């Protein structure tokens, strides 16, 4: 048996990382819940956002956290425009086409990043990068604690928007009953694009929260996407609360399996969960619908 403190530390670190995973999964699950498609460009968009944070810092000297109010609206606009004027028109309303278009888009984004930044791995240095927070017996990385709080703040804000605002209600209406929504005068194409924009904005925030402790290269998004898919499946496709809970669970599983099986095997635990959930509970732990 390992010492209790080590176990506790692994647990805490798992929760901290898991919250950011949840944030990455939020956009994926939201887009799935409303458009009923899987956005294969999700990982590439995250990579692009991380490079945006990198460039903002290296070229303009903007701190990653201060970049949030810049990059979140920028990526909202990008996501909105992509869905409204590229993915939507190119897919002619056919879900199979949307899938292929997002897949194609991810290849374009990845290659564009490769062309500009080559395959080097880069990171940024921030003055608080190694600061810690002491919490009883735990010593936690400050940027990770900030990322945890930030991810929860975004999830809470998103929940509020979806539950209370007019556009949030329109999003839920389109998700459940597209025709009924159109006949209420809700512009379905606009709602789809807003949903995509929200997903991309969540990724931008995640990128800002990740970069103080993470590295970036043109393929980094892929590493997160399997994790995000697992969370979406675990939490029940389309469920915001499910994504949050799923993210925390996956973070802890990864951390604990890393502890017991070694760093390089950490992700195997995640993949096993992915398979087991798909086999035995395809609607997810929290998914109600069959």
């Amino acid at each position: 048996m390992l010492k209790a403190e080590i176990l506790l530390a692994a647990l805490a670190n798992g929760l901290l990382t898991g919250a950011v995973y949840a944030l990455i999964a939020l956009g994926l699950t939201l887009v799935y819940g409303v458009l009923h498609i899987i956005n294969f460009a999700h990982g590439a968009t995250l990579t692009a956002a991380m490079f945006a944070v990198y460039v903002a810092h290296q070229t303009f000297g903007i701190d990653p956290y201060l970049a949030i109010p810049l990059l979140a609206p920028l990526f909202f606009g990008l996501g909105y425009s992509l869905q409204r004027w590229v993915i939507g028109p190119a897919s002619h309303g056919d879900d199979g086409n949307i899938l292929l278009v997002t897949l194609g888009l991810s290849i374009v984004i990845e290659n564009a990043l490769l062309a500009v930044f080559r395959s080097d791995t880069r990171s940024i240095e921030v003055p608080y990068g190694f600061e810690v927070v002491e919490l009883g017996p735990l010593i936690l990385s400050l940027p990770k604690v900030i990322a945890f709080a930030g991810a929860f703040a975004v999830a809470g804000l998103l929940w509020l928007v979806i539950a209370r605002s007019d556009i949030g209600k329109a999003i839920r209406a389109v998700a459940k009953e597209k025709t009924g929504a159109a006949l209420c005068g809700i512009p379905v194409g606009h709602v789809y694009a807003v949903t995509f924009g929200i997903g991309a904005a969540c990724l931008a925030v995640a990128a800002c929260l990740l970069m103080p402790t993470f590295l970036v290269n043109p393929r980094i998004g892929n590493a997160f996407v399997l994790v995000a898919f697992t969370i979406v499946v675990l939490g029940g496709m389309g469920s915001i609360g499910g994504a949050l809970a799923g993210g925390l669970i996956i973070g802890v599983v990864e951390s604990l399996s890393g502890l017991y099986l070694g760093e390089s095997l950490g992700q195997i635990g995640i993949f096993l969960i992915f398979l087991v959930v798909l086999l035995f509970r395809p609607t997810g732990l929290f998914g109600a619908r069959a």
Partner: protein
Amino acid sequence: MLEVEALTAGYGGIPVLRDVSLTIDSGEIVAVLGANGVGKTTLNRALSGLIRPDGGAIRFEGTRIERLAPPEIVRMGLIHVPEGRKIFPTMSVRENLELGGYARARTRRAANLDRVFALFPRLGERRRQLAGTLSGGEQQMLAIGRGLMAEPRLLILDEPSLGLSPRLVEDLFALVVRIAAEGLAIMLVEQNVVQSLEIAGRAYVLENGRVALAGPAAALRADPALERAYLGM
């Protein structure tokens, strides 16, 4: 108010409606009758912009609308309450109604809600209940109430009597008459011929995607051709 001229519409280039012409004036209740599958719902979809017609013209208050998208048509006051209700089952009655007023100024929402609750007191009592838990009759009232929230000038009701008991249909149709008395036009799309002709002023009968019969409701009631149009299917 509504003029449909030589309308051809269908799915994937295959016409369902051929050369359909009809008119509705303000304040009228006009029944559009026809057996299952003749193209009644297709007509409604073309009117509300859910499908693009393949030919012909649709004028609403003098404006051509056959190329407009649903939100624009809703804003003009042509409201389609669809077959099967298509309410939002996981949202409350109140949220459903609020979404009905999505295209209208927020400032008028409260007044419109009051108006709908006055017309359908049951919806008022159940405003917090999830729409999916309502009975069939209540769901139909909700669908109509949601349509009224959009401040219609022409309200299209697609088979509102579907799945309701004859007594409920009677209550519902009495309400339709009351709504029409407020000054808006109603296009009542039905298979329920007898009860529809009781409240409609005029009617069109569709057969095989064409208008087979048209005229005042009283005349159609006595017309043996009406029965033939149905039994012929």
